[in-house]
């Protein structure tokens, strides 16, 4: 509805609308100051959280891969694949490990064996059975947690949301609406990060819970031991990819290059170079948590792990550091393409 202005010169200062019984007093500056920076900040968190819910291609890809992985794990669990029971020695040709255990057991029950010999055979057979029985957790940890989840899904889940938080606003040119409000730039940066976390934590931890639940007993044990590492890695990856969103013009590309090339290359370097990768510290936390269950680096003298507490401190410190650097960078940035 178009406002109808009173063209009468004498009444011009009190512009009124015929269409609504309102006057300029509605927006009169003479009203007491009812604005609040804190209220604006919380609203920005809420608004950003809501806007992150918009379906984005990367998120759908991540969710699709998660569902695919969950289905795969469910199939493996149903087939009892999280165990050395069906492994063979010699490789692919000989009897399974369980058959070896049975044969050792049979040897122990031979009538002409000595009592000592039978005792040793029985102990050996029991040990082999015990190892086979509890081999599920290390196998699940190695294949599902370390190789699939930590190396691939965690970075993907995080980058799909974190690069979009600011990067998406930049690409769609809508960042101008935040930058033209009287909100301090550091507050904008932190608000959007706060809005991002429920999504990245939800998707990463939620995905991990799902994978573990369909992983049977091994999965449940992995969930109990590894969730703090997953959470710490999520915080670090989120802050890194979010920072990339504020810095790079094509943040998703930069984040993919980092997650699937640099992380892999650095994470597998011998010596101390791997310590610049986020995945290394997450794995260290996991090794520390699951050491009693036989989960450890294949070659500790090359992997050179740090203890769990140090790894946690590094991941949390990195999160804070990246947030600080990002806040400063965003506060000084002039986004030529968005303004």
């Amino acid at each position, binding site marked *: *509805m178009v*406002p109808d202005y009173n063209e009468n010169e004498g009444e011009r200062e009190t512009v009124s609308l015929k269409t609504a019984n309102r006057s300029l007093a509605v*927006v009169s500056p003479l009203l007491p100051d009812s604005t609040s920076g804190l209220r604006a900040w919380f609203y920005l968190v809420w608004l950003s959280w809501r806007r992150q819910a918009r379906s984005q291609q990367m998120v759908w890809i991540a969710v699709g891969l998660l569902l695919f992985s969950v289905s795969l794990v469910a199939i493996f669990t149903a087939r009892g694949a999280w165990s050395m029971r069906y492994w063979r020695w010699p490789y692919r040709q000989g009897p399974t490990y369980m058959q070896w255990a049975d044969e050792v057991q049979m040897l122990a029950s031979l009538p002409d064996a000595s009592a000592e010999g039978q005792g040793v055979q029985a102990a050996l057979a029991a040990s082999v059975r015990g190892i086979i029985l509890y081999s599920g957790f290390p196998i699940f940890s190695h294949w599902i947690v370390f190789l699939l989840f930590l190396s691939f899904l965690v970075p993907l889940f995080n980058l799909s949301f974190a690069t979009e938080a600011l990067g998406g606003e930049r690409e769609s040119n809508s960042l101008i609406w935040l930058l*033209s409000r009287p909100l301090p730039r550091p507050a904008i940066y932190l608000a959007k990060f706060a809005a991002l976390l429920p999504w990245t934590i939800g998707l990463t931890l939620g995905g991990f819970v799902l994978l573990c639940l369909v992983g049977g007993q091994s999965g449940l044990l992995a969930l109990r031991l590894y969730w703090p590492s997953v959470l710490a890695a999520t915080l670090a990856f989120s802050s890194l990819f979010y920072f990339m969103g504020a810095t790079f013009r094509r943040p998703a590309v930069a984040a993919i290059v980092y997650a699937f090339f640099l992380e892999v290359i650095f994470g597998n370097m011998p010596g101390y170079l791997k310590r610049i990768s986020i995945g290394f510290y997450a794995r260290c936390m996991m090794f520390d948590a699951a050491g009693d269950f036989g989960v450890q680096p294949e070659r500790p003298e090359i992997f050179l792990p740090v203890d769990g507490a140090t790894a946690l401190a590094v991941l949390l410190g990195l999160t804070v550091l990246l947030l600080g650097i990002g806040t400063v960078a965003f506060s000084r940035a002039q986004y*030529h393409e968005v*303004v």
Partner: protein
Amino acid sequence: MPDLLDSPDSGRGDRPLTAISVSRDPKGSAPPALPFGSRLTEEAAALPLLLCQRVSKWYGPVIGVNQVTLELRSGITGLVGSNGAGKSTLMRLITGQLRPDLGSIEIRGHDAWSTSARRHVGYCPELDSFYEEMSGRQFVEAMARLYGYPRREALDRAAFALERVGMAGRAERRVRGYSKGMRQRIKLAQALLHDPELMVLDEPLSGIDPVGRDEFVRLFGDLASMGKCLLISSHELEELEKLTDHLAIMAHGRIAAVGTVAQIRDRLDNHPLLIRIDVKRSSPGENDSENDERRRLAAGLLKLNDVVGVELLDARPEDAVDPVLVRARNPQRFFQELTRLVLEEWYEIARLETLDDSTSAVLGYLLSGRSA
């Protein structure tokens, strides 16, 4: 090359150009607008609303804004210039989206980059991007809440702003379905929300139909009469002349001229304009003074009242033209007389070029605009 306003009264030399906009309130009694959510002290009110001092901004090797000095207090100021003249860059600097590489910009004494300065400014950007998934009302309401208003007040302000821009009845539709004109109205509505003292409107009339333009022109007039200061950019002089007679013409990153259209025309008249005329050579390679077309043209030009001087430039033998350099005042009249002279004597003009870029730009606008 001298600038258009390099005249004695402009006082350029070492002193930068200054545009001072004064209130055009018809009654002259409108109270000064107060900033968003606060009361101005007398001291603050005495400060210029906008003060740009020798502001320069580069985009790599390209200069976007060059040594601009501008002071605004109230009323409507039109910022006109061709695409790439630096209007939008200047507006981005004023609204704190960009930082000047040199010079300073202050809004009521606050650095334009600061949060406190943005409280005084309502910005309607040229960019056509929104939160497309929202309705017009949701978008404007969200913008109000980002100012920190309580929900109820944000709703009221959004409703009022939407009514002011004529979008109250169409605000429930999603922004992505809006026409260009409706999107412009939404952009304007969000700029009005906090009742800012200074409104920076980048091409606000672009994409608006004629009826809508009239509504906007009236709205801008009303805001100015309330003591608001509006800086409105456009690349169409005619459009801005309907709104204000106070113009700043930008060319090549500089403010080439400031004042009313009439003032600018007067200054232009007194400012000798440098024009190069290439006359087609009748017999290529010959330089016979008897038949030299340009000498005849030069003689004819010198008889014109507005011509200050004529110079024959060296012609290269391989060129088929002879260049003449003319210095003339009152360009509008000069070009009329030149046209008459050329038609009467049948000179073959291969090229006509104004050598002063800024003056050329100003002239282009003034000649294409309505007569003052």
